[in-house]
C-alpha cells in the first residue's frame, strides 16, 4: 500500500477492515438466522427450560461464535460511521477507541455468561 494512502486513512488498514467486515457478515448470515429462529420459539417464561437450551453444546458454541462475530461486525461498522461523519481527528479516534473497548467488554461478559451456564448445567 502506498504511504500516502496510509496517511490519508485514519486506521491505515482499509483493505483488512473491508475484508473482516464482509467475513463477519458471511458468518453472521446463518448464525443470526439460527439465533432469531431459536429465540422466537424459546420457552422465555420458563427459566429452567431456557437454561436447558443454553446448556446444549451446539447451542452454547453457536452463541459464542455469533456474539463474537456480531460485536466485531458492529465495532467495524461503527468505525466507518465515525470516519464518515466526525471531522475532528481526536474525537474520531476517541470514539473508535471507546466503541472497541465497549465491544471487548460486552464480549467478555457474554463469553463468561454463556460459558457459566454451559459449565453449570451442561
Amino acid at each position: 500500500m502506498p504511504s500516502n494512502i496510509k496517511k490519508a486513512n485514519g486506521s491505515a488498514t482499509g483493505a483488512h477492515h473491508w475484508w473482516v467486515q464482509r467475513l463477519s457478515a458471511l458468518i453472521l448470515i446463518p448464525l443470526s438466522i439460527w439465533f432469531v429462529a431459536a429465540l422466537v420459539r424459546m420457552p422465555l417464561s420458563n427459566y429452567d427450560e431456557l437454561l436447558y437450551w443454553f446448556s446444549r453444546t451446539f447451542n452454547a458454541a453457536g452463541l459464542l461464535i455469533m456474539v463474537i462475530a456480531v460485536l466485531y461486525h458492529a465495532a467495524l461498522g461503527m468505525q466507518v460511521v465515525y470516519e464518515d461523519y466526525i471531522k475532528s481527528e481526536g474525537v474520531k479516534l476517541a470514539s473508535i477507541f471507546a466503541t472497541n473497548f465497549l465491544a471487548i467488554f460486552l464480549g467478555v461478559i457474554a463469553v463468561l455468561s454463556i460459558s457459566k451456564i454451559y459449565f453449570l448445567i451442561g
Partner: protein
Amino acid sequence: MSYPRPLSPHLQIYKPQLTSVLSISHRATGIALAIGTIPLVYWFWAIAHGPASYELAFEFYGSWFGLLCLAGWSFCFFFHLANGIRHLFWDAGYGFELSQVYFSGWLVVAVSIALTGISWIVGLSCKGGCIYAI
C-alpha cells in the same frame, strides 16, 4: 450585479429514491443493531446470574417499552440482513443493472417486512415455548 451561485441539490429539495433511502437505512439499522448488542449481552448475563435477575430482564422485555424496542430491533435485524446480502452480491460483482438494483431493493423491503411479521406471529404464538426440554 451579483447572482447567487448555483447550488447542488440540497437536502430540503432532494427527492428521495429507493436506492438512497435503502443505503442510509442500512447505516441507520446497523447503528440501531449495534446499540442492541448491549441489551442482548444483558440478557445473557441475566440468565447466567440467576432466576431473580432473569425475572427482572424478562419483565423489562415484556413491558410495552421493551416490546416496542424488540419490535424495532426485529425489523432492523431483518432489513440489515436482507440488504446486507444484497451488498454482498454487489461486492461479488452481481446485480448492478439499474433494473436489478430496483428489483433487489424492493425485494429487500418485502422480505424484511414479511420476516418481521412472521417472526412475531411465531414468537407470540410460542409464548410458552416451542422448543421443549427433553
